[in-house]
């Protein structure tokens, strides 16, 4: 990727991305033929935006490659669910495996991309997405930490600001961490960021210019 000449694309004529538009932008950036894990919740919707000829194979950490769309009606089979425990379908060429093999696949770096939601992402790519840390909250981690450190690239999708306007791209995460320096790309309603050793680069903006974006964030950003 480093040899590709890039520059920040400012979509000033567009509004901030809606949830479906954001999923479509993520889907656009998933390489053809990739093996991909889509996290529970919003990331799951990325599948709806993959082109029919994408050649993308979906992994679900509860033991399957070649997962198809959500099951409906007679297709529903209690033995065939995704990581969110929703009934799904099986595509031709699927394979099943047990949990240790499934997470060996993940931890071993064999998945090309995983897409996750987040509470916060730090400028060096730390991820916080499993626990608010609120007193009394019962912690639950599931596969979040395994996903964070396992895939070759971790894409995060989230709104850039909380409802009260606080940035979720932060100098240091204040929420409990899921993984260190693991996020490679951050997809938000207002901008797409590439994270790496050179810091935070802005690949695209939506309905906001680079300078205004820079002014609203507490982390240094540069043009891609």
């Amino acid at each position, binding site marked *: 990727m480093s040899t590709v000449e890039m520059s920040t694309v400012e979509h000033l004529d567009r509004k901030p991305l809606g949830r479906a538009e954001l999923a479509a932008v993520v889907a656009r950036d998933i390489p053809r033929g990739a093996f991909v894990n889509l996290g529970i919740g919003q990331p799951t919707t990325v599948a709806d935006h993959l082109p029919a000829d994408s050649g993308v194979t979906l992994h*679900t*950490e*509860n*033991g*399957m490659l070649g997962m198809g769309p959500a099951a409906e009606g007679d297709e529903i*089979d*209690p*033995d*065939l*669910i*995704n990581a969110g*425990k929703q009934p799904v379908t*099986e595509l031709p060429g699927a394979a*099943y*495996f*047990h*949990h*240790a093999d*499934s*997470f*060996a696949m*993940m*931890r071993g770096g064999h998945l090309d991309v995983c897409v996750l939601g987040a509470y916060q992402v730090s400028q060096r790519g*730390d991820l916080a997405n499993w*626990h608010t840390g609120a007193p*009394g*909250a*019962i*912690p*639950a*981690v*599931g*596969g*979040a*930490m*395994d996903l964070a*450190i*396992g895939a070759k690239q971790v894409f995060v999708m989230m709104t850039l600001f909380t409802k009260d306007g606080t940035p979720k791209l932060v100098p240091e995460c204040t929420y*409990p*961490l*899921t*993984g*260190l320096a693991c996020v490679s790309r951050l997809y938000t309603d207002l901008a797409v960021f590439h994270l790496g050793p050179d810091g935070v680069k802005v690949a695209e903006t939506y309905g906001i210019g680079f300078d205004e974006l820079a002014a609203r964030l507490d982390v240094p950003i540069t043009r891609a």
Partner: protein
Amino acid sequence: MTTLHTDPDEALAGVQDGSTVLIGGFGMAGMPVTLIDALIRQGAKDLTVVSNNAGNGDTGLAALLAARRVRKMICSFPRQSDSWVFDGLYRAGEIELELVPQGTLAERMRAAGAGIGAFYCPTGVGTPLAEGKETRTIDGREYVLEYPIKGDVALISAHAGDRLGNLVYRKTARNFGPVMATAATLTIAQVRHVAEAGELDPEAVVTPGIYVDRILDLKAEEAA
């Protein structure tokens, strides 16, 4: 040698107070409900239960928790929309929780079954779940030292089993079953179908009979 049972209570006989019980399933897929119900009737208490979740609704594992038989849960994802039984016990300080990332949970049981003394795992490094654990940098990457989780008893669910104890699973209901079968001193599997030796394809057996001590024939149980 594997013994074949038609009575769940007979299949569960002999579980001791204070045992560590591995319970298969991810959501309801692969959940050994009949065996859990028998465990409740059997009455063993002060149990440590290892399972991905910590019970849903008021049945199965949740009922075991509600009966105050479980001293400690080791799991990855206790908090769910319908985990009110666990939630209540946890908030009241009446149950201990060891939270383990899902892949590490599977790998720690795999290590127990495979005679591995401990292993260096990249998952969770730098997060609250690695606090207090030994770490080590290998080839420039940081790892956490993780120890095996061995069960006294494993309760699992499979699709079919033959009279020698060989098991096959179905779709994502496979999940933790094969790993737990290797990690426990006494493995008890509930199966939907019992096959004669030679009926299962030797290439497709997932859990060889050496790992299975008792098989409960659900079909016979239903007919009874």
